[in-house]
């Protein structure tokens, strides 16, 4: 499955400044492994242990993957994967 992955500003150092890069895989997990092969280091920014990082949001076709199976979310040809770091913080 060929998908498009939209990369946030902060991670474009891994993609040579590209805003969007192609990815391959049947699940989000496979797409991230595939991204890592072309853009080493990016996986660690997205995943912690066996899960997505708490403050990284990933959407497949505008659906937040936290509600569609997380890293196991299946993707199809032509799908769009969007990565957005949370905008968050606080006094503590």
């Amino acid at each position: 499955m060929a998908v498009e992955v939209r990369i946030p500003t902060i991670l474009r150092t891994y993609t040579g400044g590209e805003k969007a890069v192609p990815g391959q895989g049947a699940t989000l997990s496979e797409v991230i492994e595939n991204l890592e092969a072309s853009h080493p280091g990016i996986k660690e920014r997205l995943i912690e242990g066996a899960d997505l990082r708490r403050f990284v949001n990933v959407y497949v076709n505008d659906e937040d993957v936290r509600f569609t199976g997380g890293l196991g979310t299946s993707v199809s040809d032509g799908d769009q994967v969007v990565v957005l770091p949370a905008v968050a913080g606080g006094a503590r």
Partner: protein
Amino acid sequence: MLRIDQETYDAIVAHAKRDHPDEACGVVAGPEGSDRPERFIAMVNAAGSPTFYEFDPTDLLKLYREMDDRDEEPVVIYHSHTATEAYPSRTDIGLAMEPHAHYVLVSTREHGNSDGPVEFRSYRIVDGDVTEEDVSVVASLEDLRSQG
């Protein structure tokens, strides 16, 4: 330095006062590369908390798509501290992911929901390094554009 117009400045302060004692948060978008905060967008604090803020993930996607369509970027990302000073906390620093943004902090600790001055301060946060910068308030968006 952050240059911002009076109306946008007032909108940020009003939002912070309105949501006190919870933290308020939002963005001022502007044309990519312009460094001009032009479009004020108050966001919902999905955490609804006096000590934490987080844009709702669905709203976040909508916001970034909209900015993308309009060739904008988040020029200012603001939030309030409601019991502490207007300085980035460790959490703020660790979670700051927009190296080009001015991170604005407003503290409502002194007057809460009431009228009265607030601390309004601006920072760059890049790779964990915090640099405070001056804030210059101009009369209108036109001034922002003409002096830019």
